[in-house]
C-alpha cells in the first residue's frame, strides 16, 4: 500500500510535464516563438564554429557596404567590419546579458518577496517601501546612475538592469507568499517544528516557483530591450565588442546615409524580443492553472449547436417546454466528452418539475442548454431539440433566441452574489431586464422595477434600488434575482439551485415566495436542486439525474413513496427524517410570512 502510494505520483508528474510541453506546442504562436528563439540561440551558440570573419577586424576603406555585397552578406559597418559576424557575436552577448540579468533580478527579487511576504509586519512594510522607492525612481535614470557609479561595461549594465527589475519579482512573489504563509500546510509545517528557512525553501518556494517562472518569461524580453537601451546610451559593451544595443547606438549616426547599419541590429533585437514575448505568453498560459483549463476563451452569445445533430420530434403536444434527446458536452484540448446524454424532459403550463441529482450529474448543464447559455467554447450541443411552444430553440436565429431569453424563459441562478453585476445598482439591473423586452420610458421603467422589487418582498424598495448587490443580504439578493426573472412574465422559469447558497430560514422564505409567484402567475417552473426535502415541498413531478442521464421520472408523491432506481433510493436516504422535512419547513416558513410580521 505504502509502496503504491510512493510510486503513483512519479508517472503522474511525468505525464503532467509531457502535457505541459504538449500544451505549449498546442499554442501555435508560442511554438513559433520557441522555434525562432531556439534558432537564434543556436546560431549564437555556434558563433565560434561558424565560418564568420573576425567581428572586430576593421577595414575603413570598405566601410558602409550595403546588404548583399560580396563577402559581406549584411554589409559592413562604419569601420568596415562585417555586420553579419558582429550581429551573431553581438546577439550572443546581448542574450547572455539579458538572460543573466533576468536571473539575477529573479533571485534577488524573489528572495525579497519571499522574506517580505513570509515575515509580514514591519519587515514587510519596510521592504515594500524600499521596493516602492525603486519603482518611483524613473528606471532609466536609476540604471544611468548605477552605471555612472560602477563605471561602464557590460557587467555593470547587467547589474543596473537587474536592480531596476527587482521590484517586479519582489511584488509578484510577495503577493503569492503572503497568501501561502497562512495556508494550512504551512501552519502544519510550522507546528511540526520546521525552521523558517526550511519552510520557505521546502514548503513555500515550490509553490511560488510558477509565479517566478511566469514573471521571468514575461520580463526577459523587456530586459533585452533595456540592455539595448543602455548600450544605446553608450553604457554597455566596450568597443570593439559587439552587442546589439551598441551596434544600434553606433550605427545610428549612419541612419540617413546607410540605414542598414542600424536597421539590421534593430531587426535582430525585435526578433529576439518578440520570440521571447510570444514564448513567455505561452509559458504563462501553460503554467497558470486558470488559463490552463482554457479559461481564456471568449464564450459566444449562445451555445454552439452541432449542425449534424439528431432532431427528435416533440413528444408532448401541450407542453410549454419539451426537451428531447439532449446531448451537451465539452471540447477541451481537442477531446470531446459528454456532460449530459439523451435527456428528455417536458413542462406543462403552470407545472413545477424538479430536476434532482448530485453535483456533477448534469442538472445545470441541462438547464443552461435550454436557452443556449452553456459557455461555448468549450460547450457544444451535439444532439437533441428544445421545443418552446413547439418551436425548436436550438434552430432559432440568434436574435430570436435572445428575444426569447427572459421574456418567455427566465432563469434564476444559484449564487446571487456572483450572478448579479457587482457594479450596477440592483434597481438598474431589474430595469435592464424589463427594458430588454419592453419599450418603456425611464420613469415607468423605474416604477416597474420598484413594483417588482416590492412584490418579491424587498422592503423600502425605492431606496434599496439604489444599492449595490454587496450591500444586500443573501436572501435579498436572491429576491432581486427572482424579480429580474419575473420582469417579463415568462412562461417558464428555470431556477438553478436558487436556495443552495442560503441558510435554512431564508431558504424557506424564498421557496415560499417562488411557490406563491408560480401559483399567482401560472408559470411553469423547472426547479433544479439536490435536496429531496425541497423537491417534496414544491414540485409536482420529479426527474432524477445521474451521470448526465435521467434515470427516473415521475409524480413527486409516488416517486418519494416508491423509488424505482437504486440511485434515487440512495438520494432519498440521504435526506434526514424525510417525513418531517416538509412539516419543518412549513413551520418555519409560516413564521416568516409577511402577515405574521410584527
Amino acid at each position, binding site marked *: 500500500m505504502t509502496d503504491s502510494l510512493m510510486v503513483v505520483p512519479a508517472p503522474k508528474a511525468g505525464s503532467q510535464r509531457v502535457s505541459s510541453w504538449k500544451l505549449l506546442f498546442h499554442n501555435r504562436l508560442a511554438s513559433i516563438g520557441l522555434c525562432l528563439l531556439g534558432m537564434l540561440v543556436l546560431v549564437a551558440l555556434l558563433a565560434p564554429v561558424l565560418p564568420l570573419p573576425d567581428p572586430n577586424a576593421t577595414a575603413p576603406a570598405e566601410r558602409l557596404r550595403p546588404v548583399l555585397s560580396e563577402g559581406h552578406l549584411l554589409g559592413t559597418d562604419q569601420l568596415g567590419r562585417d555586420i553579419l559576424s558582429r550581429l551573431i557575436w553581438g546577439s550572443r552577448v546581448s542574450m547572455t546579458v539579458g538572460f543573466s540579468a533576468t536571473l539575477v533580478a529573479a533571485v534577488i527579487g524573489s528572495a525579497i518577496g519571499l522574506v517580505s511576504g513570509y515575515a509580514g509586519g514591519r519587515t514587510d512594510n519596510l521592504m515594500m*517601501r524600499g521596493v*516602492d*522607492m525603486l*519603482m*518611483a*525612481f*524613473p*528606471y*532609466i*535614470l536609476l540604471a*544611468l*546612475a548605477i552605471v*555612472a*557609479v560602477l563605471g561602464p561595461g557590460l557587467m555593470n549594465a547587467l547589474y543596473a538592469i537587474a536592480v531596476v527589475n527587482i521590484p517586479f519579482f519582489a511584488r509578484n512573489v510577495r503577493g503569492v507568499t503572503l497568501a501561502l504563509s497562512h495556508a494550512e500546510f504551512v501552519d502544519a509545517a510550522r507546528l511540526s517544528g520546521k525552521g523558517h528557512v526550511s519552510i520557505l525553501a521546502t514548503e513555500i518556494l515550490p509553490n511560488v516557483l510558477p509565479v517566478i517562472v511566469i514573471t521571468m518569461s514575461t520580463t526577459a*524580453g523587456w530586459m533585452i*530591450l533595456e540592455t539595448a537601451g543602455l548600450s*544605446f546610451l553608450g553604457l554597455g559593451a566596450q568597443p570593439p565588442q559587439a552587442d546589439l544595443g551598441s551596434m*544600434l547606438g553606433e550605427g545610428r549616426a549612419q*541612419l*540617413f546615409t546607410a540605414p542598414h547599419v542600424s536597421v539590421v541590429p*534593430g531587426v535582430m*533585437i*525585435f526578433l529576439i*524580443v*518578440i520570440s521571447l*514575448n*510570444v514564448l513567455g505568453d505561452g509559458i504563462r498560459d501553460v503554467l497558470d492553472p*486558470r488559463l490552463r483549463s482554457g*479559461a*481564456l*476563451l*471568449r*464564450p459566444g*452569445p449562445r451555445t454552439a449547436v452541432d449542425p449534424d445533430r439528431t432532431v427528435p420530434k416533440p413528444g408532448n403536444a401541450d407542453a410549454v417546454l419539451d426537451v428531447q434527446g439532449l446531448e451537451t458536452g465539452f471540447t477541451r484540448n481537442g477531446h470531446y466528452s459528454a456532460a449530459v446524454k439523451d435527456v428528455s424532459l417536458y413542462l406543462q403550463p403552470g407545472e413545477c418539475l424538479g430536476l434532482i441529482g448530485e453535483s456533477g450529474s448534469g442538472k445545470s448543464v441541462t438547464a*443552461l442548454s435550454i*436557452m443556449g447559455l452553456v459557455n461555448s467554447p468549450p460547450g457544444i450541443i451535439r444532439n437533441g431539440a428544445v421545443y418552446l411552444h413547439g418551436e425548436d430553440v436550438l434552430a432559432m436565429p440568434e436574435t430570436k433566441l*435572445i*428575444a426569447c*431569453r*427572459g421574456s418567455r424563459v*427566465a*432563469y434564476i*441562478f444559484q*449564487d446571487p452574489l*456572483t*450572478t*448579479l*453585476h*457587482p*457594479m*450596477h445598482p440592483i434597481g438598474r439591473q431589474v430595469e*435592464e*431586464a424589463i427594458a*430588454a423586452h419592453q419599450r418603456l420610458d425611464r420613469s415607468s421603467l423605474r416604477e416597474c422595477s420598484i413594483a417588482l422589487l416590492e412584490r418579491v418582498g424587498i422592503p423600502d424598495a425605492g431606496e434599496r434600488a439604489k444599492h*449595490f448587490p*454587496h*450591500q444586500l443580504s443573501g436572501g435579498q439578493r436572491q429576491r432581486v434575482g427572482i424579480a*429580474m426573472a419575473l*420582469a*417579463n412574465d415568462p412562461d417558464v422559469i428555470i431556477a438553478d439551485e436558487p436556495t443552495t447558497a442560503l441558510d435554512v430560514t431564508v431558504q424557506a422564505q424564498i421557496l415560499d415566495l417562488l411557490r406563491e409567484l408560480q401559483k399567482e402567475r401560472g408559470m411553469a417552473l423547472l426547479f433544479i436542486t439536490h435536496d429531496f426535502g425541497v423537491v417534496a415541498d414544491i414540485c409536482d413531478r420529479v426527474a432524477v439525474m445521474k451521470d448526465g442521464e435521467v434515470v427516473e421520472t415521475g409524480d413527486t408523491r409516488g416517486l418519494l413513496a416508491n423509488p424505482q432506481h437504486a440511485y434515487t433510493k440512495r438520494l432519498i436516504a440521504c435526506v434526514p427524517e424525510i417525513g418531517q422535512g416538509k412539516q419543518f419547513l412549513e413551520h418555519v416558513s409560516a413564521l416568516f410570512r409577511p402577515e405574521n410580521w410584527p
Partner: protein
Amino acid sequence: MPAYAAKRLLSVFPVLFGLSVIVFLVMSMIPGDPATAILGAYATPENVERINRDLGLDKPLVQQYVIWIGNVLQGDFGRSFALNRPVLDEVLERFQATLVLAGVSLVLCAVIGLLAGVVSAVRQFGWADKVITFVVLAGISMPSFWLGLILILLFAVKWRLLPASGMYAIYGGGDFKDLLLHLILPATTLAVVAAGVIARLTRAAMLEVLRQDFVRTARAKGLPERQVIYRHAFRAAVVSVIPVIGIQAGFVLGGAVYIETVFQWPGIGAMLVNAISTRDILLVQGGVLVVAASYVLFNLAADMLQTMLDPRIRS
C-alpha cells in the same frame, strides 16, 4: 475616501525622503564633480577646488544633506550648478512639458489599449484579434528610441507632415494646435509600449470577465450581445485594468527620458540625464523628487478612479 486619499498622500513623504537620501548617496558616489562640468576642458584641480568651495561641496556629505533638506523644508530647492538657475524654476518649467507629453501619452495608451484589448477579446481568433495581437506584440518588442527615429524619418523628413522635434514652432506657433502637431509623434512613440501592455491585460481581463456568472445573467435576461459586452463585461474588466494604467505611468515617465532626447522635447527626462552627467546634484534631487511624486500621484489617481468605479471597494 478623502481620509484614504490623505493617508496615501502622506505616505508619499517617507518615499520621497528615502529617495532624496538615495539620490544624495548615489550622486556622491559617481566619479567626477560638478566643477568639472562647469569648467569643461579647463577643469584644473585648482579651479575645481575653488569652485567646490564656492558651491559648498567641500563640506562633509551629511552636512551638505542637512543643509539641503533644511532649505527644502523652507521651500528653497537650491541653485543648479550647471545651469546657474534656481532648481525649482528649471524643474517646474521642464516638468510642465513632461506632464503634457506623459499625460497625453497616458490618455492615448489607455484609450488605445482598452479599445484594442476589448476588440481583440470580443473578436477572439478573428482577423481583428490577430492583427491587434501582432501589432501589440510588435509594439512592445521594439526599442522605443528606435521607433521614434523611424517615425521622424517618415513623417517629418519624407512626407513632411509633422514637425520633427520640439514642443512649439519657433515662430508664429505657441497655440494649442501647434502643440498638438508637435505632440503627435513623441506621444505616439511613448504610448506604444504602454498601450501594448494595457491591450494585453484588457484582453485577458475581458476574457475572464466574459466567463463570469453575472455575464451569463445578463445573457439570460435577453440583453443584446453589444450591451452584454460593453455595459456588463467591459465595466467589470476596466476596473481591474485601471491600477495597471497607474503603474504604466512609471514606464511612461521613464520612457520619456529616451523620447525627450530623440524628439528634443524640453521635458524633465532629458534634463535629468543631463543633470546626472554634469553631476548637478541639486537639480537631480529636484527632478527625481518631482518625477517620483508625480508617479505616486498618478498611481493614487488610478486607485481613486478604481474606487470610484467599483462600489465594492468604495464601501
